[in-house]
């Protein structure tokens, strides 16, 4: 009976999150409290089910990115890239798409689009062109880039926190499929949007307008005066953090300790340049509470043995690792197109752990299938990931209306194509390596 009640609480909470009846953090915390009150979990078990490594890593990265962005270095970099393009639409598209992917591999996806999308819209609109293909590409590349690293997207942070897989292992295992996906997406975008992206090198009027626009955004987006010492400190700490992530196994410290250390050191070094209370306020506390509530609810589901049964059922249904990996990839991809991928990943983590214990040999590829499916699937629709929704809001505020269907016409075929590319990669990897 308790099993059905637990499942009922989880499904109702999921429904409320999907249909945004209440704020999702409130729903997750409500579900968690209900599980404790009903007696599915003791208060101690509830606390133990929270993956504090994940919560602390998210918190530390939010703090670090907020302080770093106050230096103006990211805006400065974007404006420099805009200047470098000299107004060539194709180069604007390629560089801004790539910089979005690179930024979102290390910053969270929402921060990335907040930094890049407004500047792109101003630049492309100023040139008298339609900014939609550029914004769509940036949305998609923010999710693609986020899939590359342990800290790039919440599903990866959750997988890393639960499995102990480190930063380097994420990059080593994901760089090939992510590179293939980037190349595939670039080609599709260029072919589909060639009319908007073709070079203007033989049109003096277009070139002049483009270069005037670039100079306009230079003064618009660089109103904050860059302080050399602040920028140097930010770059130094960001590089050291990245090195810390890369050599995590040699250092012997968990990722969240490295990120926290970096955020605190940077805050101390730049204390006079920032308002630390403002930096603390900018941490997305509702998101962290949402994660905490969700972990408790998944802990409740786990305690009923439901997830263990699910993993048994999946493993017993096939002896093929490839088949399991493809099921995980496509299920997580398709579900993440419409639903929040975080609850799905939270449920799948114990399921895959159960599968791993039943399978002989190395089954770690299942984690990469989950990561690729959950992160890339978010591209499918406008509500598939937070970065999509935020980008559409930014665009609307700047007079570029992006509808659900507008985006889906581009994103759905591309996302399905990405999942096919990843399927091919997983197939080759499992069969030949």
């Amino acid at each position, binding site marked *: 009976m308790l099993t059905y009640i637990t499942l009922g609480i989880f499904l109702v909470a999921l429904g409320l999150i999907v249909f945004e009846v209440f704020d999702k953090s409130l729903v997750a915390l409500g579900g968690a409290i209900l599980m404790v009150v009903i007696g599915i979990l003791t208060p101690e078990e509830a606390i133990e089910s929270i993956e504090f490594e994940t919560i602390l890593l998210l918190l530390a990265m939010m703090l670090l990115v907020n302080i770093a962005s106050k230096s103006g270095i990211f805006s400065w970099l974007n404006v420099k890239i805009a200047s470098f393009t*000299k*107004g*060539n639409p194709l180069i604007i598209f390629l560089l801004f798409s790539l910089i979005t992917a690179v930024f979102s591999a290390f910053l969270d996806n929402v921060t990335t689009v907040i930094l890049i999308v407004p500047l792109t819209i101003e630049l492309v609109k*100023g*040139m*008298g062109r339609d900014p939609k293909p550029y914004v769509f590409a940036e949305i998609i590349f923010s999710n693609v880039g986020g899939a590359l690293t342990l800290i790039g997207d919440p599903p990866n942070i959750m997988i890393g926190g639960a499995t102990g897989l480190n930063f380097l292992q994420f990059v080593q295992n994901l760089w090939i499929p992510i590179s293939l996906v980037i190349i595939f997406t670039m080609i599709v975008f260029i072919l589909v949007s060639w009319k908007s992206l073709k070079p203007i*090198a*033989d*049109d*003096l*009027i277009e*070139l*002049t*307008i*483009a*270069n*005037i*626009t*670039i*100079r*306009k955004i230079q*003064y*618009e987006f660089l109103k904050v005066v860059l302080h050399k010492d602040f920028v140097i400190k930010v770059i130094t700490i960001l590089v050291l953090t990245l090195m810390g992530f890369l050599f995590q196994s040699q250092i012997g410290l968990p990722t969240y300790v490295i990120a926290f250390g970096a955020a605190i050191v940077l805050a101390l070094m730049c204390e006079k340049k920032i308002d630390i209370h403002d930096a603390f306020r900018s941490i997305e506390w509702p998101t962290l509470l949402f994660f905490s509530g969700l972990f408790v609810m998944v802990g409740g589901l786990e305690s009923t043995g439901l997830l263990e049964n699910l993993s048994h059922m999946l493993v017993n249904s096939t002896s093929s690792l490839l088949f399991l990996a493809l099921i995980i990839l496509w299920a997580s991809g398709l579900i993440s197109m419409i639903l929040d991928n975080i609850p799905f990943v939270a449920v799948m983590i114990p399921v895959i752990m159960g599968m791993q214990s039943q399978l002989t040999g190395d089954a770690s590829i299942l984690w990469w299938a989950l990561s690729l499916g959950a992160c890339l699937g978010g591209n499918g629709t406008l509500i598939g990931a937070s970065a999509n929704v935020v980008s559409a809001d930014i665009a609307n505020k700047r007079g570029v209306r992006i509808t659900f269907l507008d985006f889906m016409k581009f994103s759905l075929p591309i996302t399905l194509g990405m999942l096919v590319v990843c399927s091919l990669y997983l197939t080759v990897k499992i069969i030949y390596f």
Partner: protein
Amino acid sequence: MQAKTEVFSKLLREIEMEIGSRDLADLVFKSLITAVNSLDVKDVDFFNGEFSKLVKLVSQTEPRYGILNYYFAKLSKFTEQTICPDGKCRVKWKNMFVSEVKTILGHGDKQRLEILKNSEKIDLEGKTILIHDHSHTVQDVLVHNKNMGKHFRVIIAEQNLEKTHDNIERMYGAEIPFQVVPAYMLSHLHDEIDMVFFGAVTMKSTIDFVMAPGDHGIISEFHVVGVPLYMFIDTSKFSLWKSEKKVEVFMHKHERKHCSKPITYERIKYSHDRVPAKLFTQIVTNQGIFDPAGIKKLFLEKMEKYQIEI
């Protein structure tokens, strides 16, 4: 072409409102250099065709910018007379063109310095100066005179928040003592204010200055009470073509929440004020200081010499 004209007009207007027409011109000519250097030029005839289209576009913007039209007309003449004299084009024509644009940019700096030098002739010692628009020329004049060791204070009449902040930042940065007052409360300060400084986007053949919205009211007010009014303008900003009296009006549909239902109404917003030159005491330019009659004479002479075909 119509769509391009609209895009270009909007772009120029947005920039001019932010940084003023002098800096707009600098920005356009710097962009032109980058554009010409990036242009995939087939031959000089192709370039001439492309440049003619650009000159035409500049002449069709709404509003038209005197300073841009003046220099683009000069560049056109340069292309015809120096790059391709008698139909034969020079080999290094591209370098020559870019170099001429750089010379124009240099002119801007030179003219700015000349205005600053001429402004030194005004007695500012111990005076209280009112400013309203966020003319960079006026800001430069004040900073320059402060750096010359003159002592004066500034009263900033509030207008658009960003522009007022720009004035505040500039005065603060130059350590010029200043106070800020709402523009509709100036009548209380008539006795305190010794002189009023303004800049303009252009001067038209109607001998009106095109200025920031709200300037006309303040100028009329201080003209009536007899406080000296100074205009600082670079003569390359003159609109050297026959213009008609007209104003650019933007009509916005506005909606305001009411206790029972929203009220929708048209809100009329003007882009600039047109102010007759005769209201000013002195007009300080790079070519000297003039009274209203003198500036009219100078304008008509320049128009006769350089009249631009629109």
